């Protein structure tokens, strides 16, 4: 009750004095129209290639072994806590990810998981299925590119039953 009156006071005062209370209101995802269907606000490119810093198709070229090695290091430090190559773990198995998704989608998912989880229909469905959000591991664009190279390499290899 008291807080209602307080709010009323604030409302009335702000009408009278025509001043804002507490600064500019920032547009946050919460204040955006949420009734729209998930993905309705995405471009064709975003639907296929994800939302994030990768905004156009990549020129991949042949697989670069140095980049694969760097990608594997990052994979072992930052990814294997939740992903295995050949089995579902905390998140999906990743050996075939390059066959399931576009390279650009993979990099955007690594680099911008929070927004992907909020706005992309594919990712939203994955969260519903796995119930754990993909964490942002703070990779640079170069790091994510290296992990992508690692995925390109392992997709060519035979699956093993051992956890990699």
């Amino acid at each position: 009750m008291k807080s209602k009156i307080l709010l009323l006071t604030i409302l009335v005062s702000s009408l009278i004095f025509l001043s804002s209370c507490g600064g500019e209101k920032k547009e946050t995802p919460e204040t955006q129209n949420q009734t729209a269907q998930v993905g309705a606000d995405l471009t064709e490119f975003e639907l296929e290639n994800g939302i994030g810093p990768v905004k156009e198709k990549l020129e991949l070229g042949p697989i670069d072994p140095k980049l694969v090695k760097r990608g594997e290091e990052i994979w072992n430090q930052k990814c294997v806590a939740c992903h295995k190559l050949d089995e579902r773990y905390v998140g999906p198995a990743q050996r075939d990810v390059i066959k399931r998704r576009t390279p650009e989608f993979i990099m955007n998912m690594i680099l911008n998981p929070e927004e992907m989880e909020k706005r992309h229909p594919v990712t939203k469905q994955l969260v519903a299925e796995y119930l754990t959000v993909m964490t942002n591991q703070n990779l640079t664009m170069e790091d994510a590119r290296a992990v992508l190279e690692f995925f390109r390499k392992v997709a060519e290899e035979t699956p093993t039953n051992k956890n990699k």
Partner: protein
Amino acid sequence: MQNINSNKLILISLIILSFIGIYLGCKSSKDVVSGDVAQAVYVAPGTYDEFYLFTSGGFNGQVGVYGLPSGRHFKTISVFSQNPETGYGYSEETRPMLMTSYGFVPWDDAHHPELSMTDGVPDGRFLFINANNTPRVAKIDLKTFETTEIIEIPNSAGNHASPFVTENTEYIVASTRFSVPVPNADVPISSYKENFKGTISFIALDPKTEKMNLAFQIIVPGFNYDLAHAGKGPSKDWAFFTSYNTEQANTLLEINASKNDKDFVAAVNWRLAEKYVKEGKAKKMSAEYYHNIYDEKKHMAVSEVKKEVLVLDPKDCPGMIYYLPTPKSPHGVDVDPTGEYIVAGGKLATVIPVHSFSKMLKAIEEKQFDGEVNGIPILKYEAVVAGEVQNPGLGPLHTEFDGKGYAYTSCFVSSEIVKWKLGTWEVVDRIPTYYSIGHLCIPGGDSKKPWGKYVVALNKITKDRYLPTGPELTQSAQLIDISGEKMRLLLDFPTVGEPHYAQAIPAEILMKNSAKIYKIEENNHPYKANGEKEAKVERKGNDVHVYMTAIRSHFAPDNIEGIKVGDNVYFHVTNLEQDWDIPHGFTIKGSNNAEILIMPGQTKTLLWKPTKPGIYPFYCTDFCSALHQEMQGYVRVSPANSNVALSYYTGSSSK
């Protein structure tokens, strides 16, 4: 109930008043608030406060972080006291932070936060705070809001006049509130006048490494040195210290230290002292004291034991220190933004005496002395005083400035803040505080360029201001608007511990530098598990080292067997997350230690000594994800002579 109704009435009348559009205060039995105070302190959801406020925790030994104008509490920074919530002072990495020459000291009394300065203006790099009981000074890094360095002060007791900084943080000062024999000695207490001494210490901050070093100490007569401030502008080479108990009483000080009409403000020319040290005038004195540094790359603290200190005797150092007579048992000593006026809060005086720096220099030049104590000349009061504020209030303690030519002094006995004009010394406004104000804080109020806008009253007594909580009540701060001619009360807000002093700084200065994570690539902790592949358990005699990883929402390893009663089990937990605000907690059943809270990219260690065989669950204590409840594991403990093999795994036992 009645209280609530009267508040409703006030609010309803406020609405009516704002419709009429006239200003009118609503006087209740309590205080005066005016029309738009709610707006003035309302920080809308999702928006930020304008200032950070750092309050000392007093007897809790920590630092409180708040927002202004909302009064919201954001963090308690662990400094001098163990904090079981984070593991500070419990974890293997942070225990060295609390080491002293008296061994491990898990508590202290933290009084005065002080922001580092560049050109006399708070720069947002560090916050310093003193430990009053076991004399120490701590440095808090304002990128991480964590304590990263603590230095002990030898030859000191009651490090109260501390840790005020010089204009460019060349030095941080410290001095003895309680005089003691120097070096300490087993003597009759009644030999006080003969054996007890004070010390004034200068801790240098290395401009390159940003580490502290006790540069030198000055031996002074055995008074109680209470508070301090460095000069600025024309007085930037000087630092000023209040003293009381010039009577040198050692019992019933309440009466015996309140006899003299005047005590002293000590004026120290630190630039000259520095020169004397360079010229070799200081004597090396053996003294054992600890210097503890937290390495943010190794994520652990290391203690270094120092063995000697350089000591200056005023007798050998002419021109280095003078006494300014000051009525009466002064507490605060505060230098105005121009560096010319030195305001002393004579807590038993009927006036606020204000000394003039330029008059002081002239008096020194003309040798206007009134005797000396232990080789320290006493200047004539009339020759140094610029003016006296008449009838300021009872028990003036501490003064800060708004940068517009006004000073604000807290008066403890009469429970009020008085606003007065520099130069004319007239009181222009006063406002009651609830109750018994100690120090006060204006953003930048002790600097060259105060931001002004607010004064925060740090009150000692709360009584009926909040819902009662039994005999112990929180302390109460009050936010007062000083942007206009008249001071205006805006808000009461509770504070943790007992804030003796506070400093505030615009949020924009700190926000942009605030760390979000520790980069895991830069983590050089010797027991770091760099990814889940490195999770393992190693036995070395009775010591078992668990290299454990944590990520939403599991530990690796999460099943461990082969631990025996009598083992020292070190859980070195690395948080693999690289995402802001995702710490993981770790604890284990029966732990005689705290928990540990591990920040993203950090490694922390909990030592566990199991005493009985059985199965012991461990789990994450900081809610991290939808499957947080599942973030757990088991340790099997066998009898000391058992031959259960050491084994560990996550997910499948066929590792």
